């Protein structure tokens, strides 16, 4: 089978909780190596979308294809979350409090059945990259907010996943720290050559980081394009209004 052109493809994916349709017949293609941002107000279905890609929720309808493998087929899951080889940075980080910094990374690698020496090498490499080497034996609760954030990112990257999903990855940080970590995050993602799907409600963040982005509202993607493209020609009144803040800010 030839290498697929896209790393992730969603076709007609829908999800309802009770009577509320959270994601509505959504289709999306993410290309290998790109940083794709989904930008939208809170409650628009962004997080549910990520959880369906990861396999933590099952779509009611639609298909999801990951690196040429059909992971969800017409609303029926074909692969477990574990088999999808995905990295995930949760909004609340979800660091395991009873494991050390090294232990948090090791848990992920051990599940991938990697030998002990190469696990250690990989852990050292990633921790070094995110400036946490000296904390390998520390417990997450002893780290500062920024350090915890970097650990969560390291855990998502450590097993060389096909795709990393980031749910509001910088929202828990204060403004200065956020600006700094944003640049670092982009450089790490490029360096590890992973494809990233980032969900955020922060327009500055999305426009600064994304290769391509999509504006999401009420469970649908309203517009998809490059940051410049979207900014210069907003497709409808919602996008125009939503972007008001950022266009004034950056122009």
């Amino acid at each position, binding site marked *: 089978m030839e290498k697929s052109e896209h790393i992730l493809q969603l076709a007609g994916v829908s999800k309802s909780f009770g009577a509320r349709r959270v994601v509505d017949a959504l289709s999306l293609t993410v290309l290998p190596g790109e940083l794709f941002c989904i930008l939208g107000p809170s409650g628009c279905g962004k997080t549910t979308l990520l959880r369906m890609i990861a396999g933590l929720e099952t779509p009611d309808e639609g298909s999801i294809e990951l690196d040429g493998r059909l992971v969800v087929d017409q609303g029926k899951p074909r692969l477990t979350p*574990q088999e999808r080889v995905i990295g995930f940075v949760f909004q609340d980080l979800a660091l395991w409090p009873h494991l050390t910094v090294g232990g948090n990374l090791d848990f992920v690698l051990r599940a991938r059945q990697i030998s002990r020496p190469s696990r250690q090498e990989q852990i050292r490499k990633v921790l070094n990259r995110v400036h946490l080497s000296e904390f390998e034996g520390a417990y997450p609760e002893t780290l500062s907010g920024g350090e915890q954030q970097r650990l969560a990112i390291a855990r998502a990257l450590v097993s060389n996943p096909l795709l990393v999903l980031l749910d509001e990855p910088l929202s828990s940080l204060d403004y200065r720290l956020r600006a700094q970590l944003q640049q670092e995050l982009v450089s790490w993602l490029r360096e590890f050559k992973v494809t990233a799907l980032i969900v955020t409600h922060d327009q500055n963040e999305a426009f600064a980081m994304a290769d391509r982005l999509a504006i999401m509202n009420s469970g649908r993607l309203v517009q998809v394009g490059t940051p410049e493209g979207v900014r210069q020609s907003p497709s409808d009144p919602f996008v125009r209004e939503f972007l008001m803040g950022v266009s004034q800010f950056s122009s």
Partner: protein
Amino acid sequence: MHSPRWLFIVTGTFFLGIAVLPVCLMFLESFQTANGFTLANYASLLTSSRQQELLWNSLVLALATASFATLLGAPLGFFLAKLRLPSRHRWRLLLVTPLLVPPYILGIAWIFAGGQLAEGFARWTFSLPGAVAMLSLSCFPIPMLVAEAALSRVPARLEEAAWLAAGWRRTLFSITLPLVLPSLASGFLLVFILSLGDFSVPSLLRVRVFATEVYTQFAAFFNFGAATAATAPLLLLILVLSISVRLLIGEKWITTRRSPGASALLLSEAWTMAGMGLFSVMILLSSVLPLLCLAMKVRHVETLIRSAWSTRDSIAASLVLSAAVSLLSVAMGLLLGYWRARTKARLKALADVLWILLFTLPGTVLGIGLVRLWNQPLTNPLYGTWVTLLLGLLARFVPIAALLLAAGVRQMPASLEEAALVHGSSWWRSFIGILVPSMKRSLLAVGLLVFLLAFGELAITILLIPVGTSTLPLQTFTTITNSPDEVMAALCLLQVLVILITLFVIGRSVTKSRPQMDKLPA
């Protein structure tokens, strides 16, 4: 917060007087003889082979009961927390029932069953293993509830994050279990302490342990020194264990709040069936079969009615007494718990240990301390009246009420009351108008629990009851040897009926809708 300090000082002092003072008195007394200070009472503990047998029996009973109860209860708690169950609260209520029925009633039922089944089984029930089996079947809800509460508190994200990398088995064993281990250990310890101090089952099955020895020394030989010395090692052991429980649980006393997000370990339909099967087996073994045994023994409704009529005074006394104890315990427990939850004083950890200690102290031990306290020239007018018994039961049940209600108050954000104070309300108005209504369900649940525990109480009652009167459990217990089986069974069944009626009338309103505090924003 401008709370009236005198209120807490008065309540606290009263509590210290009726509950802590007797224990201290007794402890001091164990060092005394007619000639002054002595360690003789303790020396005999170490040297006498009789005492060593008691120690051995007590420890084996407690250790085995705690182990079996945890092995039974923890998986049930896991299923309660992790399955997508229809009517979860109804299963929980059915599973908790054996904890609320006094263990000696289950014991009597099993003895009847043994009598009908086989000679060997009947003989086996009158042994240490028999006592372990009966206590395990009545204590397993404790580790079950503790495990369920702990598992529901594990944030779903932690499991989901693991689930992305590993299968559910590794997630369960490497992430979930280590996180709930301290709680499981505390549940184990609680059962250990409670079965160490249980008086009724060993005494029913004629297994000699410390808790029964205390009573024998006191009631048969009226030997205070020996009775208190027999309690001293228990007292020390329970003190150490109470501190351990406090350290393990820390500030996280049984909170009912579930963590945000649905549980990550989505067990399949097959598991739901397996879980419900397990629930049914346990309910059958621990509640339905014993009840059937009793009912078969009674046979005619007429026997039941006749027994009820002839014991109507005891039934009335039990109901009134338990209701009074329940009301007063909730009132005092709320004040003490409020102080515990809102104070910044260092004393709060000590208060926790004290409450765990007093609740888990064997009833006979506390009872003898209480006799010592009330049988003095100064307090003698009260001794042997219902007042002494009421105060004795308060000493037993205020601690558990305070412990649980402190946890309840801690879940209420202080800002709710602060908002009332800032907007011109007095402390009393914010306490009565804001805090109490928003804790309605916790108060009702604790009141129900204390009512049921007080209704089945035996050890303190037997020591402090006014001469010539009786409660229903006491009547049951004292007629064991000289009544026909069907009368015994009828008395047991009456007790169970009262318990079940209370449980399903009041318990429904407690568990039916979710606690108020769940409605608060996170």
